């Protein structure tokens, strides 16, 4: 007996309302007509309280992140893409192959349904690109004014199907620091897109999944020590955390840091240091000295790693600190960030 063909309901609402979050028919229609229409897959479709995934062999990696970016959409991407790539990247730099994501939406009453559809569509596309399945989701609606359009929380599960141990404990003096590409693209793109600074420019978010880059490095075995995606707080924050956790010094070279000209210009105009600005499609890795050449070649072989560079070295002293060798041959500390990077006049 053939199953009756299920037609998805058509969503006629222009705006998201509190009814869409109440759990009743309106919610059902929203999920069906919008979320499932974009995200449909075997794990999600049953819409059970939990998705039940097949067993996997290997250690699991778990991560979660919330996405509250404003504006929702900006040159180079939107919050939907961020929600996938950000979580995928957290798994990737832990050495895991990303498998499943869950997504939780908090929608603001009054959000345009077309906007929501674009974002979910974007999210679905990003998931396909990253090879992950959105296995479960949730939607809530809050009153107008309480959610900046929408917030997304996504959790991710990945599998480590290898034995390589990654972590600050593996980092030793002599190791090299590699960066997969240009700095500060995302943070500056969003800052400009907000419009308050009235800048316009050829600056685009770099949001992208770096799981393949990460996997290629894991292929080097024990020679790869530690990886991170330098998001909030920028490269400086990621390296400061490494230095503190590993009890080492990290010394980077100013001239080795790749920064796109428009991004550098935007930073100069606003008095912001690109080292502290968020990246969403990059990874920073520490590898053994003898493997640095191979690692760099692997990164550069990928379109996402074209501007990859060896940017520094791990040293003994001064432990816990990050230093920058300036182009002039001087040096300075790259200290921990105190608060958001903000435009300066001085």
């Amino acid at each position, binding site marked *: 007996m053939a199953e009756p063909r299920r037609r998805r309901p058509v969503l006629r609402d222009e705006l998201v309302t509190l009814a869409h979050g109440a759990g009743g028919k309106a919610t059902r229609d929203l999920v069906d007509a919008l979320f499932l229409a974009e995200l449909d897959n075997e794990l999600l479709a049953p819409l059970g309280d939990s998705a039940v995934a097949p067993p996997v062999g290997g250690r699991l990696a778990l991560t979660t992140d919330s996405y509250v970016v404003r504006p929702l959409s900006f040159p180079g991407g939107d919050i939907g893409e961020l929600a996938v790539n950000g979580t995928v990247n957290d798994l990737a730099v832990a050495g895991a192959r990303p498998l499943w994501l869950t997504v939780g939406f908090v929608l603001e009453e009054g959000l345009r349904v077309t906007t929501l559809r674009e974002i979910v569509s974007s999210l679905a596309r990003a998931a396909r690109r990253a090879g992950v399945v959105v296995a479960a989701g949730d939607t809530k609606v809050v009153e107008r004014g309480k959610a900046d359009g929408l917030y997304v929380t996504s959790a991710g599960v990945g599998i480590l199907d290898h034995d390589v141990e990654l972590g600050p404990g593996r980092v030793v003096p002599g190791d090299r620091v590699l960066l997969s590409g240009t700095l500060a693209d995302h943070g500056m793109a969003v800052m400009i897109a907000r419009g*308050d*600074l*009235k*800048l316009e420019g050829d600056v685009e978010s770099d949001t992208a999944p770096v799981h393949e880059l990460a996997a290629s490095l894991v292929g080097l075995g024990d020679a790869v020590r530690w990886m991170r995606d330098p998001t909030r707080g920028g490269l400086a924050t990621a390296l400061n955390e490494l230095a503190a956790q590993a009890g080492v010094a990290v010394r980077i070279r100013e*001239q080795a840091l790749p920064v796109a*000209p428009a991004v*550098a*210009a935007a930073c*100069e105009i*606003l*008095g912001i240091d690109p080292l502290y600005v968020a990246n969403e499609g990059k990874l920073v890795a520490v590898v053994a000295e003898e493997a640095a050449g191979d690692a760099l070649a692997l990164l550069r072989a990928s379109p996402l790693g074209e501007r990859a560079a060896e940017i520094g070295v791990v040293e003994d002293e*001064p432990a816990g*600190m990050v*230093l920058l*060798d*300036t*182009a*002039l*041959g*001087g*040096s*300075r*500390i790259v*200290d921990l960030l*105190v*608060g958001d990077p*903000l*435009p*300066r*006049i*001085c």
Partner: protein
Amino acid sequence: MRYVDEFRDPVLARSLAAELRSLVTPGEVVRVMEVCGGHTHAIYRHGLDELLPPEVELVHGPGCPVCVIPMGRVDDAIAIAETDGVTLATFGDMIRVPGGRDSLLQAQARGADVRVVYSPLDALELARGEPGRHVCFFAVGFETTAPATAITLLRAREEGVSNFSVFCNHVLIEPPLRAILETPGCAVDAFVGPGHVATVVGSDAFRFVPEEYGRPLVVSAFEPTDLLQSVALILRQLAQGRCEVENQYTRVVLPEGNTLALAAMAETLQLREDFEWRGLGVLPRSALGIRDELAAFDAERLFALPGRRLEDPKACSCGMVLTGRMKPWECRVFGTACTPERPLGTCMVSSEGACAAFFSYGRLRQPREEVTVGG
């Protein structure tokens, strides 16, 4: 970036640094004060101080208009921000500066409407766009920034924008320079002059430094090679027994400055009788307020401000550091009770403050051995 990258050329910079070594007399220390916070920042950002011969000692001056705003004035700004229906528009620099209790950032968390703007014109536009709210612009800066406020006030008046005001805290460069030079025991031998202030006031405005106080002053641009060249010019003056104002920033600075900017300032702003400078005390005729004709835009006349004078903690030695008599690391509370995150005094308050810059960028440097002549 044109007109920037060429002046950041590392090869040029290193050769200039080498040239400096041939310009000093071994063992004879020359103390050079850079007045402008932007110069302090540039020095640390590029690690320039490490390129200088040990005989050249840099002393960081008080040219940080953010640092010198007294806590009481920050509290006044917070009071404005906390007024119902008011938006306080401010430069990013001021957001974390602590008043007596907390900062604009914390006031924002408590519900005050504080917005960061890049330009006072953006604040005016905020006012135009939100006729139901009053927008007050927190104006800070030396003569570099005052013309921007001036033009904004003129436009506000021209367009009849009635929901806009300025909380004016513009300060002048000459009084603190004199205060430093007149401090007993002032050990500064020469000055690197503030290039962007000079863009407005002109390099001639600094002639009082050599003519009345006998110290050379070189108006400097902001890139590493500019700064190094300025130090070289200073050393040559000292070696040749000359004492004058030289302009290294000729691509932008004129002897007479920017007459349009000065005229706009004269039309809209007036000299205050005196003004309190954090770390330096009350200096007469050292700051600008809004002219009576523009009273409708003067926040001090529109709002009832607490106007309190708050003392820096006793442990604070900023006055000594600002006038070059003490180094940041010599202050008892440097890096301990006083950090960029929890500043006790002005020198730690903004990233250009002498102590903040040293703490954030250079605190690993070994303090230079005091190089004395004759042992």
